[in-house]
């Protein structure tokens, strides 16, 4: 044990991406080095810009240490946006490789390609899908149920920083060392020490562990919030649908994420402590990992899909100016999906050799999920029926979702049929199927929700022009990128192939490549939309807070909302509370009596716990034991110290609340109520004209 070994563990010169590129200046090496340069360069530019703008103090006091659910929600979305950009670029690189590498090596080496599909999947599930939805739920759910914050604001901050920590590990793996090559599901024994001795699988284990710990805490947090912090009168059957889906997702997170944490930790025990849970020899059995993983993995799919279903329910109802059709049906369907999602995990491995009756059972269970899902889609269609539909960006994404998602549903039922699954499992058909579910199902929903709630969060609307452009890119890009994959999958092309051998595949890979570029353009449109919208914000402000003539409580305060959300906690007497208040002229009335409001003080404990554990896990990856110990000590020490702190609340005096409320009411009184025809014009100040 030399000094350097103790200090740096397994870390050596050649672990650095730039050194590797220097020694191996192939195209693949240069792409890897370039990616590392972008990661380092991006970080340096951001840090320099923050210093130049003297924004550090602002960032620290207003954002990083904030326990406000709204700000935490926004930070989740920002993190997800950064990660989405990386993972989508990786997808384009992979498609480019497949378009080029027909009977030749292409641009990336096999191990590099494997890293790309592993990081792409890991990021998209754990660091794009989850943070996007957790961010949206964080922002919206407390506002919808009339709460001032989530039940455990400090735990919320820890969850955020654990997720960011996982993201930092993934970014670090670009520069230092290499990521796993075992796919996002990380099946052993391939990821065992016997086959992969490097740091890759360790990066995967520990970054996923950080994310899963954060997700578990978020689940507990949101579920308790919905159980305990609903405004008086907000009974179960008066909850907005998005809150229902948040609750179901939270329950899924509480029950489904621990099997993943256990599976990755057992794999870590194999790799670090010489145990044999999943090894080939000495009694290990990898089938246990596969079962544990999908016991998490399948409910995870519904963790990702239920909140967007909630978004569609809100968006379609609001932009059709109509009550949601079949509320009770939708609630039952949501709950049914949540419960059924635990009964289907085996369909991820029909091919593992179990008996036909077992496969048939899980096949039927899988098809059953199609029933409540179909019900939901029809409920949205009937919501538009007899409505006044505004075909704006959010609605385009919603309708695009309905049309596209059912195609994924069709391939899903096909895959649920074991005899057919034997043929298309592990092929590009499967890849096409789950992208067909997740892109329209999850991403379109998030974009629709982002468009819908953005004016609430920031006080101005998003650009419609760029929103439409984004829609066309995403919608047609999806079809071009993934329909060829269905075809190639039917032709028996295995997933994760970095080289193909049949020239007949070329047209299909080229179409898919074009589609991938269109999807990247779609993402660029989303960013341009944000930039353009900020620049044009003076003509799109909606300070009164109800730009869409919507129905839930989240529209009943100014935009952006005050940090305490509600000047007085609302009384709820029926579903769509704000709609009925508007109808009976109760929407913009001062309260009889304002009270002092208690809010959590800012705290740096969340960031310390999160970054402490990240340092600890980073130490584990590189066998830098002092860092692991130090990081863990910081995290544990902070958690214990914080539990002794008593002065963690601050009071906002009633006068201040009253003054703010009065200013907003004056603003509302001065605003001109507009009809839905003028929704997208500068006339829209966020006050809706009653239209019966």
């Amino acid at each position, binding site marked *: 044990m030399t000094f350097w070994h103790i200090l740096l563990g397994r870390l050596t010169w050649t672990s650095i991406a730039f050194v590797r590129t220097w020694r191996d200046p192939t195209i693949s090496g240069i792409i890897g080095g370039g990616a590392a340069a972008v990661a380092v360069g991006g970080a340096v530019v951001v840090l320099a810009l923050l210093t130049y703008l003297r924004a550090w103090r602002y960032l620290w006091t207003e954002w990083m240490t904030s326990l406000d659910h709204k700000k935490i929600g926004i930070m989740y979305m920002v993190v997800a946006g950064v990660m989405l950009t990386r993972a989508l670029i990786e997808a384009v690189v992979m498609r480019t490789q497949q378009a080029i590498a027909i009977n030749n090596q292409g641009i990336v080496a096999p191990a590099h390609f494997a890293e790309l599909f592993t990081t792409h999947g890991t990021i998209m599930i754990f660091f794009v899908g989850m943070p996007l939805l957790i961010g949206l739920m964080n922002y919206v759910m407390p506002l919808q149920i009339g709460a001032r914050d989530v039940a455990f604001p400090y735990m919320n901050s820890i969850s955020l920083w654990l997720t960011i920590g996982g993201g930092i590990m993934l970014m670090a793996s670009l520069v230092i060392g290499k990521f796993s090559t075992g796919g996002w599901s990380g099946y052993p024994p391939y990821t065992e020490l016997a086959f992969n001795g*490097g740091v890759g699988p360790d990066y995967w284990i520990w970054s996923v562990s950080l994310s899963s710990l954060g997700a578990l805490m978020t689940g507990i947090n949101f579920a308790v919030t919905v159980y305990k912090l609903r405004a008086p009168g907000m009974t179960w059957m008066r909850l907005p649908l998005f809150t229902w889906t948040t609750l179901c997702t939270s329950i899924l997170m509480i029950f489904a994420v621990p099997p993943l944490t256990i599976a990755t930790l057992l794999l870590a025990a194999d790799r670090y402590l010489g145990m044999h849970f999943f090894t080939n020899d000495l009694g290990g059995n990898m089938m246990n990992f596969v079962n544990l993983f999908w016991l998490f993995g399948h409910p995870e799919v519904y963790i990702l899909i239920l909140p967007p279903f909630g978004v569609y329910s809100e968006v379609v109802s609001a932009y059709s100016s109509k009550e949601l059709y079949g509320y009770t049906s939708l609630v039952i369907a949501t709950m049914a999906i949540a419960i059924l999602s635990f009964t289907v995990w085996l369909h991820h491995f029909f*091919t593992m050799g179990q008996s*036909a009756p077992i496969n048939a059972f899980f096949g039927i269970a899988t098809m059953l999920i199609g029933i409540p899902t179909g019900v939901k889609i029809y409920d949205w269609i009937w919501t538009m029926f007899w409505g006044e539909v505004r075909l704006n960006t959010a609605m385009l994404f919603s309708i695009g979702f309905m049309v596209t998602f059912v195609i994924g549903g069709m391939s899903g039922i096909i895959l649920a049929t074991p005899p057919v699954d034997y043929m298309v*499992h*592990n092929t590009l058909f499967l890849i096409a199927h789950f992208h067909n579910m997740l892109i329209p199902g999850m991403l379109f929903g998030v974009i629709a929700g982002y468009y819908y709630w953005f004016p609430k969060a920031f006080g101005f609307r998003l650009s419609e022009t760029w929103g439409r452009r984004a829609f066309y890119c995403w919608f047609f890009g999806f079809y071009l990128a993934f329909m060829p994959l269905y075809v190639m999958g039917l032709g*028996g092309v295995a997933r994760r192939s970095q080289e193909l051998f049949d020239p007949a595949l070329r047209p299909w890979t080229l179409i898919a490549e074009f589609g991938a570029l269109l999807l990247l353009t779609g993402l660029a449109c989303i960013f341009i939309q944000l930039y353009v919208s900020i620049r044009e914000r003076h003509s799109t402000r909606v300070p009164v807070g109800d730009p869409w003539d919507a129905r839930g409580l989240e529209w009943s305060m100014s935009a952006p909302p005050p940090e305490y959300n509600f000047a007085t906690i609302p009384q709820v007497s029926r579903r769509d509370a704000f709609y009925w208040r508007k109808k009976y002229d109760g929407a913009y009335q001062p309260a009889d009596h304002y009270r002092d409001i208690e809010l959590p003080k800012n705290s740096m404990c969340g960031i310390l716990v999160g970054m402490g554990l990240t340092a600890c896990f980073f130490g584990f990856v590189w066998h830098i034991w002092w860092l692991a110990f130090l990081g863990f000590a910081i995290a544990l020490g902070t958690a214990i110290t914080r539990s002794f702190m008593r002065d963690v609340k601050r009071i906002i005096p009633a006068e201040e609340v009253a003054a703010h409320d009065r200013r907003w009411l004056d603003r509302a009184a001065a605003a001109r109520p507009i009809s839905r025809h003028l929704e997208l014009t500068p006339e829209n100040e966020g006050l809706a004209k009653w239209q019966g």
Partner: protein
Amino acid sequence: MTTVFICIAATSLSGCSVLRRGFLAPAGPIAHAERHEFFFVGAVMLVVIGPVILLAPLIAWHYRLANTKSAFRPQWGFSWILEGLIWVPPTLIVIFLAVFLVQRTEQLDPYRPIPSKLPPLQVDVVSLDWKWLFIYPTLHIASVNQLIVPADRPIQMHLTSGTVMQSLLMPRLAGQIYAMAGMETQLHILISKPGNYWGENAQYDGDGFVHQKFQVMGITPQDFDRWVAHTQQTPKTLDSEAYTSLSRQSILPQPITFGNVEPGIFSKIVHQMIPLGYAAQHEKAKSNGG
């Protein structure tokens, strides 16, 4: 729409010949039945999703804000008839599909022997990094990356892995079943017509993954007997030592054959009683760290 467009575009370029690589161009009864099942479920599902694809854009367009002629009933949100329509028919369709699913899953169980007048030919399959080893235990021969079998006679395969988990897929014949170390799985195939087909590993297992493809040749019984007799002349023997060296990570430029096979070697492989060649390779890789 787009799909149709893509298909037309691609057809004009190279034909939908890609589909002839897979089970939509079946070369045996299993793949044939699976293709039938695919079209059957697909057709039923088209009926189910068709209305959504039509109704969603149509209703949205008809009830658009600009259309002042369409009715507007903002407080309408429930109808028993519609509830019945959206819950009951899908449930009936799932029950209908479920009945077929149980039947077909039973019939097409990879473990189920294929009925035939001829006795099945035994082939033991071992997946290795990055090649496939086929042992013919009754004929005492073996081949690597080349599966030659008589047409029109059922083949009973027993699979295991000498390395990580892999998945055997022969797209025009049958598939897919996992090969896992220390365990044995089964797959039955039958080639209807003599011809050349292909097989692959569909589960990623490292750098040589894409090269882990093999030729499947269905030949006439006479040709098969001739091939067996010829192969038995090959001087090489598949014994423990040869297996150890074969199990090193490598990509083979061309198939290998063994004229003799140590009796019971497959069982030894399943029970992991033969030292593996990759172990030494991995020890070396591990000490390199990264």
